[in-house]
Structures are given as C-alpha cells and as structure tokens.
C-alpha cells in the first residue's frame, strides 16, 4: 500500500476521525474551499470541490480530500446535478496517477537515436526546452513552409486541447491529427452538415421516457452524465432499447435488444426510418417546417446544379435543390422552392437574412464568421412571413429531477405555418414540372420523396437479413421509440444516445446523418431529453481554454493546404470542415514527402494508437526531424519524441469546466495540490510555446503582458469567463467551492434554458460569446444552406454531385463478411468489433494505476463458448488474433452475450511496465491489425470495427520466447496477474515531488 500511512490501522483511525467531521451529507454551504473539515494527530484534512478528469471531458463533480498537502482520496459530489455524486473507479484511482512514481517531472531531451529501445532521456531546463523548440520549429518552418508542422491531439480533456485550435494558430498550420477523427468528430460533423455542430448530444439528464442506447456503454465511462446518471435514466425510463452487437453491462436490463451485426448500424437506422414513415409516426409539422423535406430536387440529369450563397456555416455550395434564382431573373439563390399543398403553387423559404452580427466589431465574432452580410433586409423567412421569435410555451415536464434539483426549462410550443402555407411532402405522379428562367422545363420531386425512396428498400425484413436481428423486434423498437407516450407534453419520447461504433465501419458520416434524421423526423430535436447540442455556458466555446485572446501576428492557417484534402476534399472547406487533417494521409505524407514535407510537430497527450494502423504510424513518426510530446507519462508515442514536457494532473491545476454534452452544467477543476517537481499545467505550457514562437497569447505590449506565464492559469481562465456575471477566475472559483456547478438553464435562459431554440433564433447562436449574442440577430431554424435540418445535404451534394449521397445510405464495411467474404472462410474466422468501455480504463489510460490494473490485468477477447469449443480454446487462454497486417494476443473471455462468429477485442493496450521506448504497444494493440487505407470515403475515419480476423490459440510453440504470455523485447512478461509485485511498486510516491 501507499507510503501515506505506516499501517492500515493508523490509516483507519485517521480516516474515522476525518469522516466523523465531514459527514456524507454535509450541507453545501459548509463546503468552502479548503474548509477545515477535521483535525487529527496526522494533520488537518481539507476538502476541495473539483471536477474529475478520469475520463473524457467535464465529467463528475467531486471532492478531493487533502491532508498534510497530500491527496488522500476523492469522492463524488452530490451537488453536481449532472453526475449525481458519482465518482467511478477510474476517478477514484486518479490519486494513484497524481502520485505515480513514473510521472514525468522535468523537461527532457532524447540522447539516443529513435530506433533505440532507450531514448536516453536527459533532464533539461524549461528555458533550454523552449529555446530549442523555438529554434527548431522556426528553422524547419522557414525551410519547408508553415504547414510542415502538425500537431497531434488526444482525447478531449479541455486543458490539453491545444492541437485542436490554439497550436494551429500558433504555428499557422491547419494540420493536426485529432482523436476526434474517430470519436465524436464524425457525429459532430454529421450534425454540422445536417443542422448544427454537435447536435449529436442527447440531453441524457432530461431523462427521456424511451432510453435508446445505441452502441455505447455510458454506464461505465465518458461524459458527465455517465455511470450513476445513465443508470438512473435507464431505470426511470418507460422503455429501454439497446442496439449493440453484445450484451452490455447496462443493456442486460433493456426491454428490447437489437443485437445487430457489427457495421450495420446504418441499415438499422434506415429500417427505423422506414417504420416511422410507413406507420405515419413522424412529426408532420416539424418535418415540413424545420427540415428541408418539402424542398424540391431537380431530377433532370442534364441540369447543372446551381449555387446557393449561404451565410450559414455551409457557405457557397452547388446543389440540386430548386432555388428562386433558377426560375426567376434576379431571384435569390438562397430562397429554396417548395410546393404549397394548399394552392398547388410554388413558394419559398429564404434562408439568408439581414446581417447576423452587423454591429459587432468584436474580434471573436469575426473569428466565428458571424459577420457575413446579406442583401436581404429581413431575417430568414417563408414567403409572406414576418418572422418573430416564438414566445408561447410551458415548463418542461421531465420526471425524476427531485434528487438532483436541476431546473426544468421552458418548452416553446411548436408554431404553425402562416395562414395559407403548408409545404407539400409529395409531388404529383412523375414529379412536378417547373419552368426555369430560361424557359427550360424540369421535373422536381421533394427531398422527402427521395428519403422515402431510399428507405423503401430497408424494410424490417430486409434489415433483419442485413443485421441478423428479428424483423418484428426492429419494427417494435422503432414503433415504441416514435410513438409518443404522453402526447400532451407536445414533444417526443427523447433522443437517441448514438455513440462511436457508428463511426468505425467506413460509413461514419452517413450513419450519423441517418441517426440525426431519425431524431429529427420523430420530433426530438432540442426537446426535453432530446438532441440538444453542447451546453451553452462558460467557457462560451469548448476550445476557448487554450485559445489565446490576442490575434496572430503571422496570419491564419491556410485550410486549403490541409493534409488529406486530395482524397477528402471536405477537409479543406474554408468554413464547413471537420477540423482534422486525415491521420493516415499525414503518415503517408511523412513517408512520401507529397504534397509537401511534414517534418515536425507537437503531441499534447496525443498518441498514434487510436487510429490508422499503429505500426505504420509509429514507423513514420520516427522519421520526423523534430517532435515534442507533452504528457504525464512515457507513453509509446513519447518514446519517439525529441523533447518531452511534463504536464500536470487534474488534481494539480485550475481550469474552468463545462459539459461538452447537453447536461447544462459548468463548474471547475480546482487545484488541490502542487504539481510534482517541474511539471506544469498544459495551459502554461501552451503559453510558453506561443512565447517561443513569438506569437502573442494575451493582448499587451510588454512580454509580461503578452505571455503572463507565471499567471497563466489565471489569465486563461479569465479569457474563458468573459461575459459571465462572475468574470474573475478567483471569484468564480470561490463561488464554485461554495455552491457547486452552475445550471446553464438558469444562467443562460435563452441560450440554454429554452427548448426548441430553432423557434427562437437561438439554436445556432447559443455558443457564441455573450458580447456577440447581445447584439446579434437570431435567425430562426438551423445553421445550414437551407436553414433547415438537412435530409438532403447541400454540402455533400456540392462535393459529390454524381454519387447519390445527398440522402445518406448504408455501405457494407470493406473487410466485413459481405464485402470481403474471403476473410471468413475457415473455422478460425471471426468478425471483430472492439472499443467497448472497460470499467477501470479510459481508452489507453490508467494501465499503470494499481487499483485499475489489479482488477483488469490483461486485454480480453470476448467469444461465444460455442466458437471457443470449436477452435479449442478455453477461458483464460491467450490467443493470437491475426489480419494480414499483424497479429496480437489477448485473453479469452467466454461470453454468451456475443453472437457466434463475432469477437470483441479490447483496444489500445500498452504496457508501462516494460522498459522499452515503444512500451510493447504492438503486443496487444488492436489497431496494429488495421488496414490503414480502409476509411470513411468523406472524412477519412479509420475502419476500427467490423473487419475479419483469424483467432487461434497461443502456445509455447507459436509464441516468442516460447511464452504465450506477451513479453517485452528482453523477454520480460507483461503484468498479467494482480499478485504481480510490480503493481505494488506503482503505489503512490508522496515523497519524490520536490524539485531535485
């Protein structure tokens, strides 16, 4: 055990005294920062209110207990309404990360070549590190151009998000490998195309009455509404539907389980839409008024698609939708034509409006592209409509909020069309004949008709054939989801919690568009428990925490030069891009030098194991002239760095926090203890890098003003708090200590406290800075070319006019049993899925924390016992898992909850216990198996799931060192048992934190 106490007995005595004074139900008002909560002979115990970072982002409200300057434990905070007092195994084990003997504590430089098993780390000063960084990057950029630099970003803990934005500005390069290319980014981008960025978030805390868990396990990990909140939501729901190839930990309780074949989510989604339409369960008014369903598609193939110059994020795009400018000289190209069902005449929706932020001079508004202008003097409107924000409505009726005390919010009533208007969903047989302005006649059909055509082939029977589920279960699930349990509320049963498996079988973008459309047609956009987008609160924008307040002195990144855009042109779109450079393309560019040389970069908790082929990625990264890693550990990716910078742990830093999801909570992570030795918070490191590159971070004339490095956390947090009623970080922190997190429904009643914001003009503007919000016009509808939720994607239509992809469809995974049957021919062939949530880990994190590793020492492969018997393996056997790229080993877990023929692999294992630079990632790392060229055709997302593998027993004969247990290069076994003494050696080191 730890060195905190001499014996467990003294620990128990001390703990008893502490607990006695604190009380589990202490009133929040007594919970001041560093409140004296008890004294013992061992020293005063203080507790600090904070927000955990054991997984994704925002996460759970917690208390961190500190005694004699040391963290002794952490617990859930019941005042945090989003997390209900939850604190999972990962979070509680966090203190073992903070005090881990293997923490990086000083800047270091490599002294051995990159193919060496030992980097030969040598301690250097921060000054030397920053001097080298400034010199090397400047030298390489002046030699090869700004774009020779790229960043690498890990998962999204807010203070290490430099690569997503700040470092692009700092280095004036658009290039970054971002973990969101394979997780959540495709969902965000799908909604950016369809309605508004990040409307893939369901308001879980809005406790939908039908809880649909589609490919996830938020009962175990991720986001602030996971674990206790997720279980609470599922328990309270009238129905719980699970769509997942395997029986999940919470899904065991589902009322309906659709155990689909991995990679067929899109077919399932289209099947649900089929049922919803055929049974007339769609929200007719929403579909006609707020989706582009009634807009007209020109059918004639010889018609050249016309441009719409939208002021939305979509910008100018060519598309097949009929516009006023097509039929009338001088007509608007953003007035989209519809057929009025009431009189059989054409009319339109004008999606551009008067300048949305004409009076705003704020630089941040310009950054957000809000100041585009329009010739129209009116806000977006239907012909004849004088649109005003809707105001009538009533309080939401969310059940079960009594424990958390969160507020209900106000639901705007769905408003009808103006008198005399009702856009048609259907045209006459053969399509509507329309005369264009040049006299030419064309035929048009509605977007809705195209959707009906697309889903017609996805009957429940057909979907059953594709997915392996029962047709009657598919129909029943879709029907229960779409049939309103309580029509009197005026809104649907809730959204769909669709998660990352939908992104991993090379149909990433379209599968997520299907889910967004499904939520739309059932009337579950921006409703209680529906799809609500990212919380509007503070910081006003997620990336703000690492974004400087000063403008670049070296210009802006040139998006047109982003790597991967030759294959995936949407990556280079000036406004409507997904923000990443394609990872595989980056690695290929390093190899080939085409279209230009990539020579250097910075990884901020970034790793090469989360996408593309890990082995290929690692080989390419080694070739770079200069690489810097910012991290807590010597990870495999740190193993190829030239310089490594030590980052602070969440218990050691101050940072404002906001739910990235729809919980509506914002609060803070508050420093409980100092970082060890010379480790520094990421915010400070990023500011140092700006200084090294001569880019100002804050406004000012002196160096101390431009780069207030000694006050970096304070300065960054103050930037993020702009516009809040408590604008100073120190005051904010104090208020947070006293009261816990804020409820955005109360703090931002228009931007967050109101549902159906597309009726008020706030759906697309809620995350703008408060200063901009105050003066801007708020247009109705969504942030798209058509101003409507786009079933017909104008952006995809622009880039892929001949591919019939404007309406999303299903594609088989390239290495699945249908597209690549050769991989499935023998007895040892399996369809592999991966990426499930492990209770004690977050992706590749926490492998070195004793409390986590002892509970889950090795990676497991779940296999149906029927299959195991056939191939001759038993529970606990190591097996080889092989593709033509590589083979890895995992341990068999016999699991009746997975279909015969399918295996579930754990992802991204590496072994901190191995004394070698690559930390053995190739032994069990699942992405070493990948075909790097199997990607989503639009945005590049890797084929992480739904591919064929061979599985066979690992034996002494077929294993290196004659040992089925994976071993390091020197033959040392990995830790595979909770009794391994190396686990005890990883106990907290409370002593080695002072600077040596």
């Amino acid at each position, binding site marked *: 055990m*730890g060195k905190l*106490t001499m014996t*467990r*007995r003294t*620990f*128990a*005595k001390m*703990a*008893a005294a502490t*607990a*006695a004074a604190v*009380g*589990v*139900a202490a009133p929040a008002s007594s919970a001041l920062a560093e409140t004296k909560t008890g004294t013992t002979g061992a020293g005063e115990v203080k507790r600090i209110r904070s927000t955990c970072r054991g997984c994704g982002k925002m996460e759970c409200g917690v208390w961190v207990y500190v005694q004699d300057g040391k963290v002794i*434990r*952490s*617990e*859930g905070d*019941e005042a945090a309404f989003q997390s*209900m*007092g*939850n*604190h*999972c*195994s990962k979070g*509680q*084990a966090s203190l073992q990360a903070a005090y881990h003997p293997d923490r990086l504590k000083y800047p270091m430089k490599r002294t051995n070549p990159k193919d060496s098993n030992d980097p030969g780390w040598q301690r250097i000063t921060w000054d030397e590190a920053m001097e080298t960084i400034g010199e090397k990057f400047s030298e390489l950029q002046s030699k090869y151009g700004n774009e020779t630099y790229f960043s690498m970003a890990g998962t999204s803990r807010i203070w290490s998000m430099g690569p997503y934005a700040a470092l692009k500005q700092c280095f004036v390069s658009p290039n970054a490998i971002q973990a969101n290319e394979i997780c959540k980014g495709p969902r965000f981008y799908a909604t950016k195309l369809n309605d508004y960025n990040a409307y893939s978030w369901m308001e879980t805390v809005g406790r939908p009455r039908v809880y649909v868990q589609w490919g996830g396990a938020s*009962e*175990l990990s991720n986001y602030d509404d996971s*674990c*206790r909140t997720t*279980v609470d939501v599922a*328990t*309270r*729901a009238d129905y719980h539907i699970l769509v997942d190839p395997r*029986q999940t*930990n*919470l899904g*065991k*309780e589902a009322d309906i389980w659709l155990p689909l074949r991995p990679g067929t989510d899109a077919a399932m989604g289209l099947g649900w839409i089929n049922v919803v339409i055929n049974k007339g369960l769609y929200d007719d008014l929403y579909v006609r008024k707020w989706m582009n369903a009634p807009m007209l598609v020109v059918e004639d193939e010889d018609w050249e698609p016309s441009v719409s110059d939208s002021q939305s994020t979509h910008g100018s795009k060519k598309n097949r939708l009929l516009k006023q400018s097509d039929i009338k000289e001088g007509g608007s190209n953003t007035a989209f034509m519809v057929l009025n069902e009431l009189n059989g005449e054409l009319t339109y929706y004008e999606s551009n409006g008067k300048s949305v932020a004409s009076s705003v001079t704020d630089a941040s508004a310009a950054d957000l592209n809000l100041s585009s202008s329009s010739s129209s003097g009116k806000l977006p409107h239907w012909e004849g409509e004088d649109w005003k924000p809707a105001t009538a409505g009533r309080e939401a009726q969310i*059940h*079960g909020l009594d*424990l958390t005390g969160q507020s209900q919010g106000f639901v705007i009533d769905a408003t009808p069309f103006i008198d005399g208007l009702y856009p048609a969903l259907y045209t006459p047989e053969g399509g509507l004949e329309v005369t264009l302005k040049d006299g030419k006649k064309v035929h048009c059909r509605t977007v809705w008709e195209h959707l009906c055509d697309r889903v017609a082939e996805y009957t429940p029977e057909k979907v059953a054939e594709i997915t392996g589920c029962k047709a009657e279960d598919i129909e029943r699930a879709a029907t229960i989801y779409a049939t309103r349990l309580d029509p009197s509320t005026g809104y649907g049963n809730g959204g769909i919690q669709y998660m990352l498996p939908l992104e991993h079988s090379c149909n990433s973008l379209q599968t997520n568009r299907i889910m967004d459309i499904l939520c739309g047609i059932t009337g579950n956009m921006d409703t209680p428990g529906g799809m609500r987008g990212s919380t509007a609160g503070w910081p006003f924008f997620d990336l703000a925490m690492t974004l400087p307040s000063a403008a670049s002195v070296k210009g802006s990144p040139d998006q047109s030069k982003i790597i991967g855009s030759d294959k995936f042109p949407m990556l280079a779109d000036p406004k409507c891009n997904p923000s990443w450079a394609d990872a595989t393309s980056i690695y290929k560019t390093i190899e080939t030098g085409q279209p230009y040389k990539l020579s250097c970069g910075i990884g901020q908790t970034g790793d090469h194991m989360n996408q593309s082929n890990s082995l290929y990625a690692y080989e390419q990264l080694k070739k770079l002239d200069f690489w810097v890693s910012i991290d807590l550990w010597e990870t495999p990716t740190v193993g190829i760095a030239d310089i490594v910078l030590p980052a602070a742990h969440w218990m050691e830093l101050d940072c404002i926090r906001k739910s990235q999801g729809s919980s509506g909570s914002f609060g803070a992570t508050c420093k409980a203890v100092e970082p060890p030795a010379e480790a520094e918070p990421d915010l400070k490191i990023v500011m140092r890098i700006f200084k090294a590159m001569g880019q100002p971070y804050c406004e000012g004339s002196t160096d101390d003003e431009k780069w207030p490095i000694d006050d970096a956390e304070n300065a960054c947090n103050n930037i993020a708090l702009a516009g809040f009623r408590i604008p100073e970080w120190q005051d904010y922190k104090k208020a947070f200590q006293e009261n816990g997190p804020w409820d955005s429904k109360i703090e931002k009643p228009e931007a967050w406290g109101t549902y159906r914001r597309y009726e008020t003009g706030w759906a697309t503007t809620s995350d703008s800075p408060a200063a901009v919000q105050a003066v801007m016009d708020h247009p109705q509808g969504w942030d798209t070319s058509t101003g409507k939720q786009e079933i017909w994607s104008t952006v995809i239509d622009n880039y892929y006019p001949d591919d019939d992809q404007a309406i999303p469809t299903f594609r088989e995974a390239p290495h699945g049993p249908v597209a690549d049957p050769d991989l499935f021919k023998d007895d040892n062939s399996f369809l592999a899925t991966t990426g499930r949530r492990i*209770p004690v880990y977050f992706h590749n994190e926490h492998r070195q924390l*004793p*409390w*986590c590793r*002892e*509970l889950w020492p090795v990676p497991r492969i779940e296999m*149906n016992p029927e299959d195991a018997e056939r191939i001759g393996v038993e529970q606990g056997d190591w097996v080889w898992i092989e593709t033509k790229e590589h083979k890895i080993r995992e341990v068999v877990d016999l699991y*009746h*909850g*997975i*279909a*015969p023929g399918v295996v579930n692999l754990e992802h991204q294992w590496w072994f901190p216990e191995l004394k070698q630079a690559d930390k053995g990632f190739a032994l069990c790392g699942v992405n070493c198996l990948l075909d790097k060229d199997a990607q989503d055709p639009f945005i590049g997302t890797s084929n992480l799931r739904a591919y064929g593998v061979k599985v066979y027993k690992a034996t002494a004969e077929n294993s290196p060192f004659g040992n089925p247990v994976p071993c390091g290069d020197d033959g040392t076994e990995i830790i595979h048992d*909770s*009794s391994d003494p190396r*686990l*005890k050696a990883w*106990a907290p080191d409370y002593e080695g934190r002072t600077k040596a």
Partner: protein
Amino acid sequence: MSHPAIVTDLNKCVGCLACSVACKAFNGVPIGSFWNKTLRIGPYPTAEGSGHFPDVYTYFLTVQCQHCADPECVKVCPTGASHIAADGTVQIDKSKCIGCQFCAMSCPYGVRYLNDEERVVEKCTLCEQKTAQGELPQCVTQCGGFARFFGDLDEGIESFRGPYNKTLGELIGEDGDYPIKPFKDSDVHHLPDVGNHPSFRYILRNHEWKGEE
C-alpha cells in the same frame, strides 16, 4: 442485537467496479487483495428464451463479508479475534489474531485473506469507522449504479439508506419519479446459507437468482 448489512439492487448494478476501488481508497487494502469483489453471473439463458444468444441475461454480484448472524469464522477462531461486535457486525481484533487462517477457510464466501505484512487476517469491516458515526460505508456512497443501501436488517430493507441520504423505501415506485422499481419478497435473495445466516441482501427482479438460497 442489530444486524447491519448492505442490500444491493442487482438490476441497477452495472459492474462498474466503483465499489471495489472505493473500498481500496478508503480502507487502504493492500494491492492484490480485496475486501469486496464483483462477480459476473452469466450471461445465462433466460427462462423463456431460445436457450442461447441473444436470449441471455447477466447480473453482477458484489461479494464481501456478509456480516452473518451466526458466523462460521467466529466459531472456528481459536483466539476470539474474530467476533461479533456490539453493533452486530463481524470484526477481527487484530491484536488477538495469530494468522492461522482457520476463519478464511471456514468462510463460505472466500472473502478473507492474510495480510502478508501484518500477518493477520483482514476483511470488510463495513467501514466501521464511518458507520460508528452514523455514516454509510464507502462502497455504498460511491456506488456507480445508486444500487446499494446500508441499514439494520432487523428494521427491514426499506429502511436502508443510500446516496442523498434517502431510504430505499422513499425511492420505490413504478413511474419515472422513482429510481428504484418495486420488487416482491421473492425477488430478495441472499448468498447460500449453510447455517451462518448471512445478513446481506440482493434484489433481483424478473430473472433467475443463480445462487442457492
């Protein structure tokens, strides 16, 4: 005498292991040893299903010292180290323990172990240092499923308390305002009883309890 115990709602337990780590963090249990463990039961065929995938069900069983009313460990202890404390819990007086491990062998649930450093047997104390002050055991307050409640079995499990300091009884109801769903007497189970009368209870609705009664 009272019978302090924990009741776990197995329909809400998702095997998140927060209780296991909570115990370690609070009680300083040595790495490699556990006071509580979570077992996966199944997946096993459901009663009216096809007998195979996907007609299967799983539950997670949290196992620790059951603080029995008539504990074998106390009977076999040669020194009186293992004893029933005044509050009704089963405890080990480490000053009397000689590390003979008869108790560990006699325990029907395998929840005791020898601490190698101290050479004494250890097991779950039900966080006596907390419960003595009227608080809840750490595995109850930190339960990720809001599935665990602590109380005196003699008072009935509806009186047990959990997070938010609510009693189980206050939280039971059919509709969405209630986070605990109603259960029948026949849904309440305990680990196999060989005359030791375990105090802990497990609620499992709609599915077959795989332990004996």
